[in-house]
């Protein structure tokens, strides 16, 4: 049985999702990228939306933009950290804000990692693939098995 790991990408820029999906596939990671464009969709995906009683299978890592159309990334992060079941879920912020204050606030809100979008990085999305590999393959977390115990289909 193949247990495909999931990456939840929360970003209203569709091109970011397309680039991430390709870069992760190119890096040979057996992971599915699920992209949503709003905070509300992300909450539904994580089983945190009101009326969404049964939590679905959580992703192995969340990649989160700081600016979403309906809420800030930090708001969404706070909702994730407030949930008993998702308290330790790895959350990687991916943003074009690079001010020291933004970085500090993100870590204080419970971010596990902070990546800055650099326009023109090549190959496109390589940094997303690296972060995905770190959280899906290299690290052992309750959400992904790590190098030794990872289930590969």
């Amino acid at each position, binding site marked *: 049985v193949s247990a495909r790991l999931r990456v939840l990408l929360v970003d209203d820029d569709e*091109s970011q999702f*397309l*680039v991430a999906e390709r870069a992760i596939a190119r890096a040979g990671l057996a992971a599915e990228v699920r992209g949503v464009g709003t905070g509300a969709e992300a909450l539904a995906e994580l089983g945190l939306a009101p009326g969404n009683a049964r939590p679905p299978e959580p992703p192995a890592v969340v990649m989160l933009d700081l600016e979403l159309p309906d809420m800030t990334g930090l708001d969404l992060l706070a909702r994730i950290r407030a949930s008993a079941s998702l308290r330790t879920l790895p959350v990687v912020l991916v943003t074009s804000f690079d001010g020291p204050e933004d970085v500090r606030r993100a870590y204080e809100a419970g971010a596990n990692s902070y990546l800055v*979008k*650099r*326009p*023109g990085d090549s*190959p496109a*999305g390589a940094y997303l693939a690296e972060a995905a590999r770190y959280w899906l393959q290299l690290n052992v977390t309750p959400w992904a098995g790590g190098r030794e115990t990872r289930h590969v289909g």
Partner: protein
Amino acid sequence: VALACTVSATLGVASLDLAGLATWEQTAPIWVTWWLGDVGGALIVAPFLLVWSGAPLERPDGGRLREGLALLASVVLAGWVVFHVVNPLALGVSLKFLCVPSLIWAAFRFGPRVCTAVIVLLSALAVWGTLGRLSHSESWQLNLTLLVVQVFLSVMAVTTLALAAVVAERRRAANAAQATSARLDEAFQQLETFSHAISHDLRSPVSTVLNCVDLLEEDHGPRLGAQGGRLLQLIRAAAGSAGRLIDQLGQHAQRWPRQAERSVVDMTALAREVCDELASLQPAAEDVRFELHELPPALGSPVLLERVFRNLLGNAVKFTRGRHPRHITVTGLPGGAEHTYLVSDNGIGFAPGEASLLFRPFRRLRGARDIEGLGVGLAVVARIVRRHGGRVWAESDGTSGARFGFTLRNEEGRS
């Protein structure tokens, strides 16, 4: 005041004379008394009425109130000793100067209002005391003594009020400077926030464009043909350059720590390091001849000052391209309070009228200097030099090269 009092005293005494109420021998003393009385009133009573008719006094705190009471006590004591205890006729030398410290105290610590009040109080004590001591003396003696007291009080009033005005003016100036500095800080903060937001808002669409170019090339590259591929390349180059500009904008806007590292910097070694690096690393700088003179050491941040040389020398290399020979000179002029540093080149220069525009961020000149570059280098230089308390300038005749100069303070000063 003196002129107005002269007019009234002269008219008054003349009318007394003409009416036959005063003899001609009495004219002079009456005139002097009249004039002094008017001047005294104008200098002692009028300022008191004027400064106290303004806005109500703010409530003093405990410490201030205690100091005010102490001042009051010292004034009353001095006035009592001078005008009541000591017999003004018996003592050849008057002790009136005992009042001076209290008046200066009032001027420095309390301002014009309290000063006028103290002078009025002192005047009251003086008149009361003098009348009390001399009520049995002859009238000419009493008159003379009162005149002397009045002269003394008038002189003290003018002196004290002038002093109080200067002190108040200085205090106002200091408060205004503080307010200006606070406003400036706030403006800088707003500018930083604004630049920060702008650089983020611009970076997002640029990164979307670059993502889309990559996706388009990957998925549809073969179908686009040679011309389509070339267009994609142009889009990528333009968006990439926009991205770098935005990064530079972000760097320019970023807050530097208020207290930068400060040490004695060997400017000669710093300039040599940058020259060597430019000569060895940049193929474009191969045929440049660097002429480096001894530079006076500076006080400041080595990291920031290196950026100054890197920007100025990098520009000089850039704008001497195509000249034979290419020549860049770095000289320094030691000074008393500040040292001067000059970077000259024999490049294409710039229009003399545009010298001040060079130091603005993202200002690209339409003239000779518009070869390449992103336009924040000199703005960064200006910012660093000003941060070190120095000045920066540029000179060119538009044909035979450019000269950039900056000064740095020689001694420890406020940053």
